[in-house]
């Protein structure tokens, strides 16, 4: 037995979830990655370089900020873990710095990545520029059109962006295409997966590269209050910011909450399946074909969820709830107006959950991970609000 959020067993299982369901052509690569990560992660020099890069380059530690006006509004004590202040504007940089350092250590000169909203693609392009690696980012054609500014950002950073035209032309298809291209480029290329998903060791490795969020928040909270929070809340797409946050608190009495979009709730509405190299929950039709997710936030538009979340759900250690797009739009505005913070639509899911559960949360203390900033979403928000107002007046 492994402890909750400890290291998975050699086959990469979290309870019944996880594993390594990849074609034989990729198997040696994921086995090699597993041992390279194990070695690196227990090497103090690797850790020191990872930590130093996060501090000097990415701006860590990020603040744990007591949001007083929001706290007053909700009648609870809300502490925001400010991943929106990390370089590139989201927590994605933590993982990418780790994987880029690992890729370099493995002698790889090139990174490939999938991206939905473009945040992970931008982070990958950034790390590639920083370490002098080549980068190619796969992005569904639909998302390329929706997130054109991030496409340009990636190109500005020197990355190549390929629009994926197969399947539903969104994030899940970008994952497929990245895997396809990886097979043909194993010699010099590392596949830098953007969340706690995919075949072992990715879900575990990405959680470890993101646990800096939770570890920092735990000690910052302790330093400020001498105690641990009652609740810990984060949004869940693939689940990396949530997994990184939960890892810091899983051994405290804190109640852990992952907030999924109602239109992409793999834990809430999904069923057990095996796709993208992992056994987990996925949105599927009655025959096991994978359905598309549909949420206002491109970064949560993923029909699956990381296997460790499936496990935390199954054993009851974390709770997974959903909020819908309208609640998210309300939450973005609430946070903007009470705290002067325009957060990402993804992160606003966590805020929306606080609003919905206000009664349950009264007088409690809550750490909320604000996974990213909202600049990338301003246009979407403007359109949606204009649309909503138009409807009201109609």
């Amino acid at each position, binding site marked *: 037995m492994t402890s909750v959020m400890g290291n998975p067993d050699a086959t990469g299982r979290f309870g019944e979830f996880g594993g*390594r*369901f990849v074609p034989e052509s990729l198997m040696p690569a994921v086995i090699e990655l597993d041992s390279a990560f194990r070695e690196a992660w227990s090497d103090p020099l690797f850790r020191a370089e990872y930590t130093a890069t996060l501090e000097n380059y990415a701006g860590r530690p990020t603040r744990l900020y007591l949001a007083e006006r929001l706290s007053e509004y909700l009648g609870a004590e809300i502490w925001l873990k400010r991943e929106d202040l990390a370089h590139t504007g989201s927590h994605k940089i933590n993982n990418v710095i780790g994987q880029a350092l690992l890729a370099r250590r493995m002698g790889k000169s090139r990174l490939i990545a999938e991206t939905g909203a473009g945040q992970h693609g931008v982070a990958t392009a950034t790390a590639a520029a920083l370490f002098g690696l080549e980068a190619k980012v796969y992005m569904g054609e639909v998302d390329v059109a929706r997130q054109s500014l991030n496409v340009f950002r990636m190109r500005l950073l020197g990355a190549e962006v390929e629009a994926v035209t197969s399947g539903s032309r969104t994030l899940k298809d970008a994952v497929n295409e990245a895997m396809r291209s990886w097979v043909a480029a194993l010699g010099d290329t590392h596949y830098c997966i953007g969340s706690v998903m995919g075949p072992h060791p990715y879900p575990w490795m990405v959680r470890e590269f993101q646990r800096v969020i939770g570890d920092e928040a735990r000690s910052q909270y302790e330093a400020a209050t001498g105690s641990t929070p009652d609740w810990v809340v984060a949004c869940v797409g693939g689940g990396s910011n949530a997994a990184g946050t939960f890892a810091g608190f899983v051994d405290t009495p804190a109640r852990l909450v992952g907030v999924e979009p109602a239109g992409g709730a793999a834990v809430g509405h999904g069923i057990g399946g095996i796709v993208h190299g992992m056994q987990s929950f996925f949105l599927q039709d009655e*025959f096991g*074909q994978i359905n598309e997710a549909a949420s206002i936030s491109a970064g949560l538009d993923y029909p699956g969820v990381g296997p460790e979340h499936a496990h935390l759900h199954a054993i009851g250690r974390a709770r997974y709830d959903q909020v819908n797009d309208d609640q998210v739009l309300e939450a973005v505005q609430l946070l903007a107006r009470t705290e002067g913070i325009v957060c990402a639509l993804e992160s606003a899911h966590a805020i929306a959950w606080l609003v919905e559960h206000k009664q349950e949360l009264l007088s409690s203390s809550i750490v909320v991970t604000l996974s990213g900033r909202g600049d990338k979403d301003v246009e979407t928000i403007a359109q949606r609000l204009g649309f909503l107002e138009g409807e009201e007046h109609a």
Partner: protein
Amino acid sequence: MLEKSLQQLRKSGRRILVPYVMAGSDPDWLSLVDLVIESGADAVEIGIPFSDPSMDGPVIQRAGELALARGVTPFSVLSELRTRSFSVPIVVMTYYNLFHHMGIERAVTELRQAGVDGVIIPDLPLEEGANWRAMAKSQGLETVQLVSPVTSLERVDEILAVAEGFVYGVGSMSVTGERAELAETATAIATRIRPRTTLPLLIGIGISNGDQAAAVVEAGADGVVVGSALLRRVLEGQTPSELSYFVSEIRAALDEA
């Protein structure tokens, strides 16, 4: 049935040709199965379309998308197969989620009832496949194992120890798709695996014409699987006689090699 049948061919000195057909990519796909058998196929690989075919290149992806758009499901494919019997073994290729979703016991039963002799599940590697293999074996369904150009010899032997039906040697470090030139890995893997197994050894992925097929059997393989090169012609709307000519050409090249 699959292994036995292919072993007999192998012992008689006949090279093995296994064309790939995507179930339901066109309403008349069963005629395509008949056509490839008449043109010299020794077994037929039948794809069941999946929403996320992460091992397939553009041609097979496209064929699968057409099938899904027509409303094809695993059950519709299997019930169509149930209405027919074929003179050669049938091997189903698809991704594991479809079987996992049905439940492996039901999946194996349905496949057997549809007359399927073997399965190829590219995303079910050695370590994850023990339950499936046991269930399949108990009902006489043979699970084909894949070995790749980067599989270590130690691992090759572990895979061969559980292999059934035939050994699928992955000819190219890529997803499915045609190649103008045969990959060096295609002949290399045939040479590398041949001395390690007495099972029929077929090379697939990237085999696009008769010359390439002949080259891999000369390197030690017993035959080939041909997918994208055939399906591209199907998607282009080539006539039955053109398709038959293409398959017969590979047949002839194998017979002469």
